[in-house]
């Protein structure tokens, strides 16, 4: 047994931390969030130059040839720095969809831009009434004269206003919650009939709803097998969850460190509040939460490509459920121990708090993953 990072993984982690500490400070980040576009394309291209955007892609596609163990090194650093650019969305969900299901032509069309940071692709898989049920797809794709016509509405599409393209889950056959009949389509954002209603999210990122009104696509828009993509979608979301968990771990670690520093310097009753046992124990509970989360991120990453899908999903759901609980606890206690200043927009603590709050319901809530874990366990 060995949990050491490889030299390459270590270098990735250290380089990411170093770059973000220097170039993505809290004030610079806030300027990015407040800007009209809400993201820094300059930073995004740097991420591309560093190879972060193609970490999990095959070398043949211009990627780094790594996997989730590499991806989580960067994701953790991004969470710790409150990065708003769409790493999870484009470099994991979008890129993996194309890499795993794309034809040679589709990969050649989309992946170079994704890897370099020239383009952003988001995954549009959820709908308002679906909540966390991936099979609940109303959006339809009809074959018509050798073309596809997509109609429907996707909600909660991460990074939607930034995306140049979307991987859209649509139903080519079957009824709304049937496992079979779900297909994926590559949709350019500027295709006629595609409308993005974007908004700023409470964590500083952007998202939106995607309206598809009789969007006509060529035959080459179908990504993967017609009607057989739910399994792939589940795998993609699992990969996204691993990255999201690593991001949350980065944010939790930052909160633990910052809260420790604060209670050591904040004086009340003429002593640092860290001298009170109730504060010390709270901090230890936060520490234990971070350590358990790190263990679970590694466990999930190590199972991310497990040949048995149920085994993979169980590991991922276990991590998401357990880290969700801990993210909530660490975020709440970081604010509590900071007192009034923890409630202010001016300090970074509240920004971590909001990021972690959103994480809890991202790509399936804590309860959803508890249920999924229990169900998969019963099957196994």
């Amino acid at each position, binding site marked *: 047994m060995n949990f050491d990072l490889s030299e390459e993984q270590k270098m990735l982690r250290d380089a990411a931390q170093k770059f973000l500490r220097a170039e993505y400070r809290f004030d610079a980040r806030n300027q990015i969030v407040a800007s009209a576009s809400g993201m820094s394309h300059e930073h995004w291209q740097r991420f591309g130059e560093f190879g972060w955007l193609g970490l999990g892609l095959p070398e043949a596609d211009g990627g780094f040839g790594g996997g989730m163990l590499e991806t989580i090194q960067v994701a953790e650093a991004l969470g710790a720095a409150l990065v708003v650019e769409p790493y999870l969305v484009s470099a994991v969900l979008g890129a993996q969809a194309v890499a795993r299901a794309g034809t040679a032509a589709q990969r050649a069309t989309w992946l170079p831009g994704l890897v370099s940071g020239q383009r952003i692709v988001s995954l549009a898989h959820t709908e308002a009434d679906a*909540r966390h049920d991936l099979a609940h797809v109303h959006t339809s794709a009809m074959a018509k004269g050798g073309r596809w016509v997509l109609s429907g509405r996707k*909600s*909660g599409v991460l990074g939607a206003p930034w995306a140049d393209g979307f991987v859209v889950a649509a139903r080519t056959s079957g009824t709304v919650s049937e496992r079979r009949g779900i297909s994926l389509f590559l949709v350019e954002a500027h295709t006629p009939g595609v409308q993005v209603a974007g908004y700023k999210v*409470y964590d500083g990122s952007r*998202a939106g709803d995607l309206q598809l009104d009789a969007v006509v696509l060529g035959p080459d828009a179908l990504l993967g097998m017609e009607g057989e993509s739910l399994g792939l979608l589940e795998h993609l979301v699992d990969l996204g969850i691993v990255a999201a968990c690593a991001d949350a771990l980065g944010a939790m670690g930052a909160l633990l460190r910052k809260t420790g520093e604060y209670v050591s310097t904040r004086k009340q009753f003429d002593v640092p509040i860290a001298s009170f046992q109730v504060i010390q124990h709270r901090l230890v509970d936060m520490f234990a939460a971070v350590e358990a989360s790190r263990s679970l991120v590694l466990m999930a990453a190590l199972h991310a490509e497990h040949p048995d899908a149920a085994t993979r999903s169980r590991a991922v759901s276990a991590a998401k459920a357990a880290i969700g609980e801990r993210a909530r606890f660490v975020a709440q206690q970081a604010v509590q121990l900071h007192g*009034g200043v923890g409630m202010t927009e001016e300090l970074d603590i509240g*920004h971590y708090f909001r990021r972690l*709050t959103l994480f809890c319901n991202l790509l399936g809530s804590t309860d959803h993953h508890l249920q999924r874990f229990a169900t998969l366990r019963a099957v196994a």
Partner: protein
Amino acid sequence: MDIDFSPEDMAFQQEVRTWFKAHTPSDLKRKTVTGEMLQKNDIVQWQRRLDGQGWLVTGWPKEHGGPGWTPTQRYIFDLERAAASAPVGLSMGVIMLGPVLIAFGTPEQKAQYLPRIRRCEDWWCQGYSEPGAGSDLASLKTTAVADGSDYIINGSKIWTTYAHWATHMFCLVRTANTGKKQEGISFLLIEMDRSGIDVKPIVSIDGEHHLNQVFLTDVRVPRKNLVGREGQGWDIAKYLLTHERTSIAGVADCKAHLANLYAAAGERRSGGQPLMEDAAMRLKLARAEIELMALEHTNFRVLAATASGKAPGPESSLLKTMGTAVQQTLAELGVEIAAEQAWPWHDGGEFGSGRHAHAMPHYCFSRAATIYGGSDEVQKNVLAKMLLAGGTR
């Protein structure tokens, strides 16, 4: 032992229910249900309406315009108010300063301020906390130095809710540095338009501006603005902390909030089915409801004790820790039910309205409940002291 309201109380409940149903403006209802922040004018207009009915200063004695209700009637009133989705809309003047002036003010102070509070002609903010004095409030450093017939005030107050709307501030200041630090604190009234006062906004993590820091530089106020004696400020502040015991738990608003959550879970869907049919969600709501029942009945017991004239005790600390826990749980559930509909920042265009639009800011600000008014940790210190002194009741 009897858990029911008396026939008189039930008649009163009906009267109050009917009135709120007929008189709560729809925009206030909407804001209350969605958790949208009320603006100053919303609160002022609503308070004047309640005052017109004689129902604003419900905690004040009759001679100062109070309705002369029993604690139970006040509780019923609050319950019906919240059930009608009417806002609390109570200001610091009504809840806090009024009772202080009634108990400690001079006849002149009462005559000058109480009617203006009732008519909402003055807006009072509370100047207690300072950057260096939070949980350890008694270490406050803002000084008031006597100079002829005036005090000269220097220092800074922080977390001052709605100071930017305020015409006046009631303030804890230090008038002496001798003896115990609590003994040098005085309770002073300051007009916000005096020179030397600077109000700086603090945006909180819900993205709203409720809070402020108030800087006081050589601010001159007449000595007649002192409430009580010099050095009596700490006792006055303590009196206030235990005064509003029956509302500190927030039972009424929690009940209204829970009803909203049930409605929201009925509307939201999961896999096409109503979210209320999701077993985990049902259990979560059930657990929250049961916690609220425990809170409500603990509150009843305190209420009954207060009605029979028992002296205030540490119940307010217990009710605060229990109450804020329930409030925060409900706020958290709101975010979970909303799922991605809670994502859009509050001015998010077409997403900026609707039932879930304020779930996230509401949850964010709910975290302050265990910080302000004596943090959870401080309340538990009070309770531990009581327990270890053998006072378990």
